């Protein structure tokens, strides 16, 4: 039983719990759903889906670093048709809301995936991963350019009436510009942050640790960076935010809520502690009881209120 005070509306998606599984680590859900208690999960954001299958990157795909994980999976996925036929029927029966993350190597691919998912039973929303390189524009990630962000989000928006989240890349100079572009193009909410670009080197082989050389950093190491970006985005847009980046405890989750997030997602935290969601939920409920707060929503942006206009140093 989830405390009713934890329910939130994330851009049109009614969530019984503000805790979601972030896209990526949770795969397509089955593996965790059959092994852990997922009753505290408000929603699952499945691993990115492209139009055709993507093979992914050569191994090694993982490297651990201090309080963090570097990964370069390469968005390996079985493609839209396989997902709809094989994965969706299993997921549609699950209790948590289902949000499908979509990827593409050009705007047409994003639009085609969105169109293919629109109107299907069991899908409650889409999340657009705009960190993919735009192959028709020199390989620069969509999410690092406000004009490209506006175009790709707009193209997806035209294909679907589903609630639309846009997942922002932190690898930008000013997250607020991208956040505003996504909002202007019709996003119903923003997810942030995706992983921070990084690399590691094996000093014995004198080669990069990852097969792809570069990867994305996640885990508790990135939490302060993510929190700041959520704070900044909350100042810049009116649509609700899904905060993520290194969350493993209720204290972490509360910081994101107080920075301005409506809900939060856990990704790498599942590797550290598969039962993380139950623990975070319990911690949130305890906090509400202890401080006599009826609804978590009362805390949204709490740290930004009281005269502090922005967190610029």
């Amino acid at each position: 039983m989830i405390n009713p005070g934890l329910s939130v509306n994330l851009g049109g998606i009614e969530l019984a719990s503000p805790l979601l599984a972030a896209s990526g680590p949770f795969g397509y859900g089955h593996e965790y759903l059959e092994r852990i208690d997922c009753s505290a999960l408000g929603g699952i954001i499945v691993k990115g889906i492209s139009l055709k299958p993507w093979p992914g990157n050569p191994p090694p795909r993982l490297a651990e670093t201090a309080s963090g994980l570097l990964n370069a999976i390469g968005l390996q996925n079985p493609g839209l048709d396989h997902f709809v036929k094989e994965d969706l029927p299993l997921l549609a029966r699950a209790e948590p809301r289902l949000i499908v993350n979509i990827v593409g190597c050009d705007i047409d691919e994003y639009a085609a995936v969105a169109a293919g998912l629109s109107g299907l039973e069991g899908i409650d929303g889409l999340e657009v991963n705009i960190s993919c390189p735009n192959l028709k524009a020199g390989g620069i990630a969509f999410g690092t350019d406000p004009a490209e962000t506006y175009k790709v989000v707009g193209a997806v928006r035209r294909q679907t009436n589903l609630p639309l989240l846009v997942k922002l890349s932190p690898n930008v100079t000013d997250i607020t510009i991208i956040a505003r572009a996504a909002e202007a193009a019709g996003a119903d909410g923003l997810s942030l942050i995706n992983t921070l670009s990084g690399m590691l080197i094996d000093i014995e082989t004198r080669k990069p640790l990852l097969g792809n050389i570069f990867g994305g950093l996640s885990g508790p190491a990135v939490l302060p960076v993510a929190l700041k970006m959520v704070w900044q985005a909350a100042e810049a847009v009116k649509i609700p935010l899904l905060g993520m980046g290194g969350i493993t405890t209720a204290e972490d989750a509360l910081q994101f809520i107080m920075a301005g997030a409506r809900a939060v997602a856990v990704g790498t935290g599942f590797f550290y502690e598969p039962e993380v969601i139950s623990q975070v939920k319990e911690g949130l409920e305890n906090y509400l009881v202890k401080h006599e707060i009826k609804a978590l929503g009362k805390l949204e942006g709490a740290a930004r209120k009281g005269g502090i206009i922005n967190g610029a140093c």
Partner: protein
Amino acid sequence: MVTEKQAIAPGYCRLSFKAPHIAGTAYPGQFVMVYMNSGYRHLLPRPFSIFTRNRDKEEVSLLFAVKGQGTELMASAEVGSLWKISGPLGSGFPALPEGSLLVAGGIGLAPLAFLAASIEKPRTLIYGARTASQLICPPGVLDLPNLEVIEVTEDGTRGERGTAADLLLGLLPGPPALFACGPGPMLRAVKTLCLHSGTPAWFSVEEKMACGIGACLGCAVQTPKGYSRVCREGPVFSAEEVFNND
């Protein structure tokens, strides 16, 4: 809970855990994930093949080389300390036919010791390493009925002189099946010999892992059908499936 620790040789350790579910249900070639108890410093659990299993005592043991921060933490574990381990995970070896050949290179002994203990019919284990100090099997583990153990070192400091593959040349064809685990170069050489002699072979391979249950796709290994997950389709693959390129 850690029930026993054996610091076998410099750089090697064996830990026994009381783990009723794993001990009761595991089969050879499967692995467990050991969660680090260092707080956030190390986020990922570490995968280890099961080395021995004792159903009566509800124990499994892991044999590992102390190579990184995770295995250093584990090597400093105290008897009686509590560690979280999950398993059994992955797809292990097929049933071991009588007369099979097992080939272990160094720490690759771990899954093969469990496999060797699964039957009492005659089978042969080739146990190789660079040098004698790397043949670190704790006493007694390989004292199994009808198990022939042939030791081999590249420098001849113990057993036969040469590589495990050198020894195989004289033994193939013949055995109905071969099972191997060890360093990549050894498995590549073994694969070539098995294919040439028409010997069906299965290898236990390793890769960095995160979830251990098939969700994250972090432990991919290249196969003719595309990338497979070491944690789910593996860690045991047929020789045809792995080491096809590079």
